[in-house]
């Protein structure tokens, strides 16, 4: 296995990792702050991808469309949390998992009914030739998508650490009752966080739609990615999601080359379980952080 192929596989992995970061960041934020594992997350990514696809058919560039699609799906997230998830917010793990699983059944099957299961693909978005570095070729669309994925994630990180509401989100994550004592309305923060989480999923959907074929059947795969990258990076850590996404991207593309693409999920799943046993707080996370 000479170095040229290895270099290409690593680059492909990193490009994939940029998208995975965007998928995982929103999921990790919701899990960290609301202690809710949002099984709906995969379908939200698919929804974003279809919205971008239909926009593309109307001639709108998916990367630009993400600026509108993200907030729109974020609003949907805000509504779902405020009127449904909030009712079981203090329930045990089992209840919130099964509830969001049921909501995913509804959203996914609605999309299957509306869009059918067959795959759709956008043509080249920017039309630029691939970037060549030595023997490694980097398709323009995939590079832009990966970079935008990481940028979107980092913007959320800045929001969390620099802004008043962002700081309140972290405060609610760390000690909800004491955040209340500071005058924070925790229910509003939950809805806002869930909205940001799904907005990021929507943006990730647009980026993926620009590069890969899409179908409602992918939602399980995206959810798996969110699980693994989020745990790799450290629960609740948005920056950790970037690291987790990149590591997963590289491991997956190496794995599919060495073992075969059909065992992709197994490679990722085994990596997740080993991570959970060895460092549940993630590569970056500090012990006892979550």
């Amino acid at each position, binding site marked *: 296995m000479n170095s040229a192929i290895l270099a290409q596989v690593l680059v492909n992995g990193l490009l994939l990792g940029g998208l995975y970061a965007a998928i995982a960041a929103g999921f990790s934020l919701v899990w960290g702050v609301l202690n809710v594992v949002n099984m709906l997350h995969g379908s939200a990514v698919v929804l974003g991808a279809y919205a971008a696809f239909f926009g593309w058919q109307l001639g709108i560039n998916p990367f630009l469309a993400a600026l509108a699609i993200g907030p729109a799906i974020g609003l949907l997230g805000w509504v779902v949390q405020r009127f449904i998830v909030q009712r079981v917010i203090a329930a045990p793990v089992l209840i919130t998992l099964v509830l969001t699983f049921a909501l995913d059944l509804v959203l996914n099957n609605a999309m299957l009914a509306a869009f059918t299961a067959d795959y759709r693909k956008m043509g080249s978005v920017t039309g630029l030739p691939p970037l060549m570095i030595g023997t490694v070729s980097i398709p323009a669309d995939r590079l832009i998508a990966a970079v935008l994925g990481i940028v979107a994630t980092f913007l959320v990180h800045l929001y969390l650490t620099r802004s008043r509401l962002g700081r309140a989100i972290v405060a609610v994550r760390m000690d909800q009752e004491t955040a209340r004592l500071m005058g924070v309305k925790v229910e509003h923060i939950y809805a806002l966080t869930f909205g940001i989480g799904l907005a990021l999923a929507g943006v990730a959907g647009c980026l993926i739609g620009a590069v890969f074929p899409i179908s409602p059947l992918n939602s399980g795969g995206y959810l798996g990615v969110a699980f693994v990258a989020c*745990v790799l990076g450290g629960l609740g850590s948005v920056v950790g999601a970037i690291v987790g996404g990149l590591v997963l991207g590289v491991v997956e593309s190496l794995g599919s080359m060495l073992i075969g693409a059909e065992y992709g999920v197994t490679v990722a799943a085994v990596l997740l379980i080993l991570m959970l046993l060895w460092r549940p707080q993630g590569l970056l996370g500090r012990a006892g952080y979550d």
Partner: protein
Amino acid sequence: MHARLQGWVLPVAILVIGAIVAYGLPIALSNQTYLLRLATSLALLVTLASAWNLVGGFTGYPSFATAAFFGLGAYASAVMQQFGWSALTGYATAAICAALLSAPFGFAILRLKGHYFAIASLMLVSILKEVTTGWSNVTGGGMGINLPGAGGDPLAIARISLEILVMLAAFSVALSLVISRGWLGFGLSCIRMNETAALSAGIDAPRLKTIAFTISSAICGVAGAAYAGWIGYIDPSDVYDVMWSVRPIIAALIGGVGTVFGPVVGSLIYLVFEELMWRNLLTFGTGALGVLIAILVLVMPGGVLPSLRKGKVS
């Protein structure tokens, strides 16, 4: 002596009633295929829900691994029968395979808590599904397996399957009652309430949790084998469907997680809802199921029977 004797009466009674129903019901329903199907589905759900309850209810660990061992059992039995072994050997292999995988895997992931454990257990389902699909020369991969016995008289198969699954359900409930009354159940409930304090009280939590997980998985494996015999054809996307993990949880939630008879009552109520829903919303089937589950979870997280064990273990 009195308590010890009294302790065994109820579990034995359950097994006897189970045997009577297992023998009588197939004859009573003899050719009504719809009722036979409904009764067999109920027996299957009671088995899975009661087995899940050992881990999710008694021990308080939210497991989503039921579908993994259910599918593993179905394939273990189907593969054995494909190579000419009897159905009975198939069931034994299913139980052994499920136990051999669940013991080490359980011991590892039972060190995790809450969401982490739930996700790790859910991941096992996708791992086994992918490995089974990939190992096509043995499992037939995506094409699935037709069980040798499938060609026989469908009514006879339906009746035998009902008999087997009713016996399995009775065994599952009786065993869960015995466990709940013994030292194992007492230790598991201490672990559920406060694992740190349980460790300090001298409870070997890792061992107890693994025992519960292994018993539960073995029962699910045999249930998978029985399901394969009943349906006659299996493929990975059917037997490893996550719904096999979710339905038993919903049933236990409705009936009362952590109680012995909650899963039984919950299974009946859930199946009534599912049949009604399925009857008239065919096109949007799974979506409607999602709405149903969401409503059930939002309305009765506490469960019909007292959800958590109140007071001391009798």
